[in-house]
């Protein structure tokens, strides 16, 4: 079964695109996570952070220009990353039309095996998450601009918190393999780098996951709450 070079001409290029977009997305989740942690500094800190996001770049650009720039970059990354993921999945399916009666993985781990699932989980989660905390249409009591309030109200409902926790654990798995894998895809395996690729991926995967789920857990456990009660 012959196949002409596809979308990005070759699977190697596609993988490079995935790695680069992956790095961009990684940069975002890392800084977003740090931003979220401001919740522990109180309502002003996080609300101010939410506002800062919008005035970023000011006075060079009008309000929210930089934010939109970032948004476009992110959106583009997600689109490319996802398109490549789908494309590669199709190619790989075609490369083994008939599976084994019995197959025992030797080296591959849970994370690498579930990249497609964790990836799509993240995608669906993000859509929900935007509707939930950015646009508010999936939120029960959304107050534009009051990030702190929105978060606390949301995570006091345990099913919502659970969705967030599950999704962010999936993100952790995705990063655990992805952050290691991108070095391979970009051809970075020199001895000096090789020894810290795995620790690097593990530390950030775990760190980012913990950083994110700290928020719903803190709210659930009452460490973070609304001053006035309710």
């Amino acid at each position: 079964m012959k196949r002409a070079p596809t979308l990005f001409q070759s699977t190697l290029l596609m993988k490079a695109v995935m790695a680069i977009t992956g790095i961009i997305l990684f940069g975002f989740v890392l800084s977003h996570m740090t931003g979220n942690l401001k919740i522990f500094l109180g309502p002003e800190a996080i609300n101010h952070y939410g506002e800062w996001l919008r005035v970023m770049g000011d006075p060079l650009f009008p309000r929210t220009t930089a934010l939109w720039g970032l948004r476009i970059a992110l959106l583009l990354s997600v689109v490319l990353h996802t398109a490549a993921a789908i494309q590669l999945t199709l190619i790989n399916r075609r490369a083994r039309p008939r599976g084994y009666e019995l197959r025992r993985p030797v080296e591959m781990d849970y994370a690498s095996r579930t990249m497609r699932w964790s990836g799509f989980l993240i995608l669906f989660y993000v859509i929900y998450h935007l509707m939930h905390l950015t646009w508010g249409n999936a939120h029960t009591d959304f107050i534009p601009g009051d990030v702190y309030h929105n978060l606390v109200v949301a995570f006091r409902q345990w099913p919502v918190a659970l969705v967030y926790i599950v999704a962010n654990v999936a993100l952790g798995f995705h990063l655990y393999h992805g952050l290691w894998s991108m070095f391979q895809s970009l051809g970075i395996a020199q001895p000096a780098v090789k020894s810290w690729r795995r620790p690097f991926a593990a530390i950030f995967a775990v760190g980012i996951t913990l950083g994110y789920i700290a928020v719903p857990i803190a709210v659930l456990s009452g460490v973070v709450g609304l001053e006035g009660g309710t």
Partner: protein
Amino acid sequence: MKITLEVWRQDGPRDAGRMVRYQTEVSEDASFLEMLDALNERLETEGDRPIAFDHDCREGICGTCGLMINGVAHGPRDRTTACQLHMREFTDGDTIRVEPWRAAAFPVIRDLVVDRSAFDRIIQSGGYISVSTGAAPEANLTPVAKPVADAAFDAATCIGCGACVAQCPNGAAQLFTAAKVSHLGLLPQGQTERWDRAVAMVETMEAEGFGSCTNHRECEAVCPKGISIDWIARMNRDYLSARLRRAGRR
């Protein structure tokens, strides 16, 4: 020892194929293929068609043999081809399942025999250094630092068995292709064609219908020669820089 075998039987490329069960009795000093030999002798005596499987050197060097044994390419022992695997790796009473390599690019010919000619075509597309007979300079004119020579050797030990493809969840031929791209790309003799070689071999590999590499590391784990996935990284690097160079030239 008594062994129950479940072997993939398939008459020809278009036949659907199925697993067939056999009972055998074998010495633990026998090799895995010798067990199949003995079973075949019995089948033949009884008038049944023997199980077709590929093999030649039986020393782990020609790369002809290749069986999926209990779901692992070349079976349970590390760095060991199917022909070098011995029955003492199993225990009396075991059930062993034997299947052919499965990949779109390796169509089954019969039973456990597959067509690996795609590998030859990958090499034909650039896996060589263009030096015609007689055109070679004195050998010691070009020193090659020992670490470079040793690294090139490590990559060059690939026996072309196809276990990497068989084991890879994506049916990717990355390890095989990378081994040759790296072997030649490391040596000073191979520099002139380095970039074109990487592009040509990768693109032939893809056109043959192999899958893509998502860095599962299964290939390295079953490779009888322990070829490292570092070579895959190196091939990616060479391929990407070759592409950038081409783009730059345009």
